[in-house]
């Protein structure tokens, strides 16, 4: 059913349909509308879950670890500083192989304090062992929650997942969204069946410490599970498409890319603006296309290389910066294209909520055509 809904409320509704038993979250802008909506659903018996009002984000995710280990489907949501406070808990949840799903309403990290959007928060957790999905619009933001639970809980994966959607740009925007019914979601997402759980009838130990004799292999197994989750994403994304008409089997998605000379690579809500800019550039006769990255972890290295093998140049848009190096997406794309001879240039854009407009995308295309890149785009003159 089509509804015009705020992104956060649509995400909250999708989470409700996933039937989490335990929700544990701490309020932080711009995630608040999601958790307020969920608390309201619990208070009005529309969602049979416990909503835990914890004292900070570290405890929010820690409570999810406990609840998940005890065998319940769990959910949390956060952003920015909240995610940074969860840093060690994120690594821990993944290492304990607990399939927690957490929405990230992407926001910049301080200092200086900024409540506005970029993707520095979740990108900075790229090494934590979580799956990372990025939504272009709110339809995708809702659908990716069903997919995230389905993939994370698969016994061959058993890793937690971020569903990232741009703070304010998506979280606070009203869009028409096709919401699934409870029956639909129940058909796609079976009841949570934990691989192991804390149970007095069958006592096991969770979270033991590993000496150098074992630690290395634990990390290998996590890496393997994350890489092999690509096949599960494909399978479940396909199944979702067959059921509801929106196919999420591909981790990357091309837009007017088949015959493009110049490819833009981007992630998140900026893909919409980029598509509009591409349409206008196409009208002017420029052969430009987009490769949208929907899954950043596991990174679809081979898929990226294949999708971009025919282009002459690549411009990667990064709403993050690995300070002292490059944007995280650009680094991955350069790795994927290594040896191909295709020039890959990175552009840091839209940090801390600065608008990215169609004319900025066009300007970046002009820069990459001149071979200029690996730079911050659109800096104020006084810092130059």
């Amino acid at each position, binding site marked *: 059913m089509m509804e015009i809904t705020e992104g956060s409320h649509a995400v909250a509704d999708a989470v409700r349909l996933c039937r989490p*038993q*335990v929700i*544990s979250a701490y309020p932080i802008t711009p995630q608040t509308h999601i958790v307020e909506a969920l608390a309201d659903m619990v208070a009005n018996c529309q969602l049979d*879950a*416990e909503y*835990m*009002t*914890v*004292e*900070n984000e*570290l*405890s929010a995710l*820690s*409570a*999810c*670890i*406990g*609840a*998940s*280990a*005890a*065998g*319940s489907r*769990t959910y949390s949501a956060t952003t920015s500083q909240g995610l940074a406070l969860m840093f*060690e*808990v994120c690594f*821990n949840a993944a290492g*304990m192989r607990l399939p927690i799903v957490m929405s990230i309403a992407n926001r910049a990290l301080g200092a200086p304090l900024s409540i506005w959007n970029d993707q520095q928060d979740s990108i900075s957790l790229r090494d934590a062992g979580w799956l990372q999905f990025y939504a272009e619009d709110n339809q995708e933001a809702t659908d990716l929650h069903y997919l995230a639970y389905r993939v994370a809980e698969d016994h061959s994966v058993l890793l937690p997942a971020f569903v990232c959607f741009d703070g304010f740009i998506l979280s606070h925007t009203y869009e028409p969204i096709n919401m699934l019914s409870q029956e639909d979601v129940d058909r796609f997402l079976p009841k949570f069946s934990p691989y192991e759980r*804390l*149970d*007095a009838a*069958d*006592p*096991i*130990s*969770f*979270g*033991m*410490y*590993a*000496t150098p004799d*074992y630690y290395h292999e634990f990390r290998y197994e996590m890496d393997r599970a994350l890489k092999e989750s690509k096949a599960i994403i494909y399978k479940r994304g396909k199944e979702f498409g067959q059921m509801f008409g929106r196919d999420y089997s591909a981790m990357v998605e091309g837009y007017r890319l088949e015959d493009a000379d110049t490819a833009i690579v981007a992630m998140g809500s900026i893909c919409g603006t980029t598509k509009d800019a591409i349409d206008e550039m196409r009208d002017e006769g420029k052969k430009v296309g987009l490769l949208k990255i929907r899954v950043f972890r596991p990174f679809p290295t081979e898929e990226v290389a294949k999708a971009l093998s025919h282009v002459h140049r690549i411009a990667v848009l990064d709403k993050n910066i690995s300070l002292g190096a490059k944007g995280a997406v650009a680094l991955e794309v350069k790795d994927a294209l290594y040896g191909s001879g295709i020039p890959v240039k990175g552009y840091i854009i839209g940090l801390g909520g600065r608008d990215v407009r169609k004319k900025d995308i066009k300007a970046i295309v002009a820069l990459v055509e001149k071979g200029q890149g690996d730079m911050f785009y659109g800096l104020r003159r006084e810092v130059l």
Partner: protein
Amino acid sequence: MVDKTLELFDCGHRACGGCGAALVARLVTKAAGPDTIVVSSTGCMEVFSTPYPETAWKVPWIHSLFENASAVASGIEVALKKQGRKEKVVVMGGDGATFDIGMICISGAFERGHDITYICYDNEAYMNTGIQRSGATPYDASTTTSPSGKCSFGNKRPKKDMPQILAAHGAPYVATASIAYPADLMKKVEKAINTKGPCYVQVHAPCCTGWGFEGEQTIAVGKLAIETGLWVNYEMVDGKVVKAKKVVRKPVEEYLKIQKRFRHLFKPTRQGAEIAAIQAIADKNAEKYAIDIKLKKE
């Protein structure tokens, strides 16, 4: 009633001989029984009991991080309730995990009123990392980060009053206990577990390695702490002290002089003023908890 003959914390763990914390694990699980989920914070107990792929725990057990055991426990408690399960949730954290780094998590869990029992095994310093000072380290104890020296007598502050802080959260049952009095310890643990809501038991757990005494002296050291009034075993119900173990008090010197962490108070010269200051702490405890047994004058 729980069958106290069951050993739910098994032999073969890697604790030092004479470890007070290992006794806590054994006695607490005995008192709690098999229908218990144990949540451990990072620390000595966690490390000596679960070197992968071996575990000493015969009850379901989980360790996540240093500071978050009470948050993990509250998540477990909520999940069990949601699933209609009846297991009890018991947290075991050292004094560093309890008094210092885990303070926010404990405060949150107690304020939310989860039905959990928190056991602090208090060995009065960060032992796992090599005997550094914590908020539970007693006045004048020498640790590796509060060493005694030419211009220092060791730790400059008395212990934080953690039981009082948790009682102020509205905890229905708060108690202190000692491994030197195992029956009393088990009784208190059982009481805490059977009291609805967040309960706290702080257990004095002498550490032979960190405090500097022979492993066979652990119980004797624990007893002396009680007998000198430097540790008081008491119970608080709804924030009020209802019971405290009375003793015929001995001078604090008897407790101090058998531990290397207080050696600087006696050698090379006796530090009378410092010993008097510690005696004053014991006297204050005795007055506050009314533990003195008054002997009739002959």
